[in-house]
C-alpha cells in the first residue's frame, strides 16, 4: 500500500494468551485495526469480549504471570509488541495515554489530583514543580474543571465522578499524547456527564490533534463519536468498518444485534430493549466454530467446524461471518426489522 500514509497505530493479528490448566488460552485472537492521525476509532463489544485486554496489551500493561502477546502493533512505525520496557515506559503517558473506566478508583487516594498530574508531567519532561503545576492548572481549566487551582489541591475522594474523569483526561493529555486510549470513560458516569465527557473527547482532535481509541459497549456512544468501529466478540473480531456503513449495513449478526439494543436517542424509550439472549462465552469455553454461533439466529452447518475468517465485505468493511460469502448477507438495517419473522 504505497499510496497510504502510515497510520498512527497499525495493529495486526494481535493475540494475547495467558496460561491456564497447563495450556494457553487466548484472551484476544488475531485482532487487527488501524487508527489514523486525529481519528476516533471505536472498540465495541459486550463485557468480557477482550476490549480492555486489547488496550492493555498495546500499552504493555498486562502483568499477569506468563502472559504472551503475539502479533504486531506499530505505533508511528515503532513496534510496540516486545519493545524494551524502558522504551515502552517513555512512550506510555507521553505519546500514548490511557484513561480508565472507573474514575473513582483510578487515582491514588493519598495524593492530591494536582500532585498526580504534576507527577506525570515531570516523569516525561524536565520541568520545575511550579511550571508543572501551572500546566496542570491550565489543563484542568481546559477540561472544564471549575476553580482549577483549588481543585488541583483536592484529593480524589473529594471530587465528583465527572470531575475526576475530567481530571483523569487532563492527566492523560498532560504530555500531549498523539494517541489516547479511553477504556469505557463514561460507563461509570450519569447520562449528562457522559455527554459532556464525550464532547470533550471529540474536541481533542482539534484542540490537541490527538487520535482516540474509544472503548465502549454502547453502540449509541459509537454512533455519536467514532469514524470507524471495530466489533469484538469473545476476543475475536466480529466486524470492522466505517461507523456509518456498519450502522446501515451490518454484515455480522452480532453487530446487527448490538444495533438493535441501542435505546432511541429521541422519543419514548421502549419498555424493554431487545437484548441478545444468553451470555458471550468466556475465552476458556469458546466453541470450535463461530464464537457467536450459540446465540446467533442465523447459525447453520457451515458455521460450526471452524471460526469463519475475516472477509472483506465492502470498502473498508470486514466481517467474520459465513453469510455474505454464501450469498445470503444480512439485509440492510432499515428493512432488517421488517423482514424478520
Amino acid at each position, binding site marked *: 500500500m504505497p499510496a497510504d500514509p502510515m497510520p498512527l497505530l497499525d495493529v495486526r493479528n494481535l493475540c494475547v494468551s495467558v496460561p491456564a490448566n497447563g495450556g494457553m488460552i487466548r484472551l484476544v485472537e488475531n485482532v487487527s485495526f488501524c487508527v489514523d492521525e486525529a481519528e476516533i476509532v471505536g472498540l465495541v463489544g459486550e463485557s468480557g469480549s477482550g476490549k480492555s485486554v486489547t488496550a492493555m496489551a498495546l*500499552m504493555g*500493561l498486562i*502483568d499477569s*504471570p506468563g502472559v504472551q502477546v503475539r502479533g504486531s502493533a506499530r505505533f508511528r512505525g515503532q513496534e510496540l509488541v516486545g519493545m524494551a520496557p524502558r522504551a515502552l*515506559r*517513555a*512512550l*506510555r*503517558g*507521553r505519546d500514548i*495515554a*490511557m484513561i*480508565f473506566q*472507573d474514575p473513582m*478508583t*483510578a*487515582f*491514588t*487516594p*493519598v*495524593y492530591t489530583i494536582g500532585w498526580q498530574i504534576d*507527577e*506525570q508531567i515531570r*516523569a*516525561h519532561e524536565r520541568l520545575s514543580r511550579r511550571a508543572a503545576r501551572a500546566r496542570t492548572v491550565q489543563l484542568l481549566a481546559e477540561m472544564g474543571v471549575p476553580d482549577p487551582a483549588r481543585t488541583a489541591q483536592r*484529593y480524589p*475522594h*473529594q471530587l465528583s465522578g465527572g470531575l475526576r474523569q475530567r481530571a*483523569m483526561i487532563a*492527566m492523560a493529555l498532560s504530555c500531549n499524547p498523539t494517541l489516547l486510549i479511553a477504556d469505557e470513560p463514561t460507563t461509570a458516569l450519569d447520562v449528562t456527564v457522559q455527554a459532556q465527557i464525550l464532547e470533550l473527547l471529540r474536541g481533542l482532535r482539534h484542540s490537541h490533534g490527538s487520535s482516540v481509541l474509544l472503548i465502549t459497549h454502547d453502540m449509541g456512544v459509537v454512533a455519536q463519536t467514532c469514524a470507524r468501529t471495530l466489533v469484538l466478540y469473545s476476543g475475536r473480531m466480529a466486524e470492522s468498518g466505517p461507523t456509518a456503513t456498519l450502522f446501515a449495513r451490518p454484515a455480522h449478526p452480532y453487530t446487527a444485534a448490538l444495533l438493535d439494543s441501542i435505546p432511541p436517542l429521541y422519543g419514548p424509550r421502549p419498555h424493554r430493549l431487545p437484548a441478545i439472549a444468553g451470555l458471550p462465552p468466556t475465552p476458556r469455553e469458546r466453541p470450535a466454530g463461530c464464537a457467536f454461533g450459540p446465540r446467533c439466529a442465523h447459525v447453520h452447518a457451515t458455521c460450526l467446524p471452524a471460526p469463519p475468517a475475516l472477509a472483506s465485505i465492502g470498502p473498508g468493511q470486514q466481517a467474520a461471518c459465513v453469510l455474505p460469502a454464501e450469498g445470503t448477507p444480512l439485509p440492510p438495517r432499515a428493512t432488517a426489522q421488517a423482514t424478520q419473522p
Partner: protein
Amino acid sequence: MIPTLLRRLGQTLFVLFGVSVLVFAVFFATPGADPTARIAGRNASPQIMEKVRREYGFDRALPVQYMTMMKKLFITRDLASYADRGELVVPQIEQAAPVTACLVCGAAFIWVSASIIMGTLAAAFRDTWVDRTLMLAGLVGISIPVFWLGQVTNLITQSRYHDTWLFSWVPGLGYVPFSEDPGGWFRALVIPWVVLAVMFIGIYSRVLRADLVALAGEDFMRTARAKGLSPTRVMLRHGLRTALVTFVSLFGLDFAQLVGGGALLTEVVFGLPGVGRLTYRALTNLDLPVIMATVMYSAIFVVVANAVVDMVYLLLDPRVRDAR
C-alpha cells in the same frame, strides 16, 4: 483538622478515665475480698492492716476510695508497696519506663526498617526465589519464641563464643543508662533489640507483602504504570505509600502493648530492669500496688499510643481526615 484533634483528645481523656475506674474496680472493689489485706501483703500485722485501711480509705465509700487511689498514683505519688518494705511504687515505674522505652523504640526502628525493605523487595520480586526466601525467613522469625531466641543468643554471645573476636564486645546482661555511657547503652541494647524485633519483622514483612501484592491489582496502580512511571516509583510512591496506612495501624497496637509491658520476656531474659520485669517481679511477690500501678501505666500507654496512631492515620490518609 483542629476540631478533629480536639475531639480525639476528649475521647482519649474519657477512655483513660474509664480505664482507671475499671482497673480500680478489678483490684479493689471486687466483692468478697478485703483490699486491705491485699495491699498490706501476706502475713501483715494488725497495726499495718489498720494503717493501710485508714491511708487508703477502705472504710469509706467507693468513690472516695477511687479518688484516694488516683491521688496516691498521680498527685502525691506516695503509693507504697508493703510487700517490698514500703518502697514507693511510682518512682519504680518512672525508673523502669525509660528502659522499656529504649528497648522497644530501638526494636521498633529495626523491625519497621527491616520489614519495609523485606516486604517491598518480596512484593517487587513476587513469585521469584527472592520472594520465597524472604517470606520463608519471615515465617521462621514468627515461629521462634522470643525467650528461646534470647536464651540462645545469650548462650552464644555471653558464654560459648564470648571470648572470640566476634562477640567480645558484648557486655554482661543488664542495662546502662544512655546518659552515663551512650556507647555502653548501645552495646547493652543492640542484641535485645534484634531479638525482640525478629518476630515482628516476620509478621510485618509478610503483612506488607500481602498488602502490596493486593494493591498491585488496584486501578490506581495501573494508572501509575500507564503514566510511564518507573516500576520502582510505582512500587514506592504509590504502592508502599498507600500500604503504609494499614501498616501504621498495626504498628501502633504492637508498639503500645510492648511499651506497656509486653516486652516482659525479653526484659527478663536480658536482665533489663524495665516495666515488664517490674510487673513480673511484682507478680511473683503478689505485690498488689505495683501490679495495679503497672497495669494502669500500660493501659494509659496503650490508650495514648492509640490516639497517636489515629493522628498519624489522619496525616497519612486524606479520606479518614474528611470522614470524621
